[in-house]
């Protein structure tokens, strides 16, 4: 069985991957202004991975990197939360301070949205996006490895016989 899909699908995949990733990143970093956020953007980025997996039937050897990325995102997330301990955990200590992501809205009510606001909310969006995209890619990677739809790696020992 061939593991790749047809030439048309592969070409369209190659073209679509970059815009999908950009779109996911757009959803993540505009999460505090528009619908979207870390989880949705991460899922969209992971779907680009799924697209590559399905079109080419193989996956690079980045499992450990993805796993580390996931842990890194979550570690930074919880550290961001723990730093707020000056007041309490999860206290938004950046918002309104004026620095990076600490901007203030010129007017309350309806506004077009300013990206340099939100404090820890924006940062946490980024961290969760990192974690979710890596995690969902790992799930896709691991499930596809066992399914027989992918190019077999050499390390997999297929032991399909049934115990009795």
């Amino acid at each position: 069985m061939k593991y790749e899909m047809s030439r048309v699908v592969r070409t369209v995949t190659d073209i679509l991957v970059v815009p999908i990733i950009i779109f996911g990143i757009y959803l993540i970093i505009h999460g505090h202004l528009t619908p979207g956020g870390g989880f949705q953007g991460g899922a969209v980025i992971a779907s680009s991975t799924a697209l590559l997996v399905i079109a080419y039937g193989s996956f690079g050897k980045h499992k450990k990197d993805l796993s580390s990325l996931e842990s890194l995102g979550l570690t930074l997330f919880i550290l961001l939360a723990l730093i707020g301990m000056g007041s309490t955990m999860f206290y938004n200590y950046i918002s309104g301070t004026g620095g990076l992501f600490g901007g203030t809205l010129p007017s309350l009510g309806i506004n077009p949205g300013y990206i340099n606001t939100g404090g820890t909310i924006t940062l946490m969006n980024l961290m969760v996006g990192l974690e979710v995209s890596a995690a969902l890619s790992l799930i896709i990677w691991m499930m596809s490895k066992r399914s027989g739809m992918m190019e077999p790696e050499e390390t997999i020992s297929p032991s399909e016989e049934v115990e009795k």
Partner: protein
Amino acid sequence: MTWPIMVILILLSISLIFNALGTIGLHRFPDVYTRLHAATKCTTFGTIFMTFTVMAYSVREYVITEEAKFLNMAVHTLLALVALLVTNPTGAHAIARAAHKMGIKPEKAVRDDLKDSEVN
């Protein structure tokens, strides 16, 4: 009724008609390939007209209100249109190829070059 509204309504009704045709064709055609003809062409065309409608609408609103969000809406609709144009025919092709690989024969087919090439 001013002419922009007329244009919007005409575009909208074209979209409705073609989507309806696609839906009917989905049930009237005998096999998967012909159904794909109906589903892909008609619904893609209808949805393209829906995006045109929304783009015309948002441009009109922008001209009236001068709010930036309507321009944003038009641009995003354009992006949705591009995404549709790229993905829909590719999806249809993938389905057709899979169906042929599964061994589903085209109904009432006169000739089948692909099948012959596989035999040889």
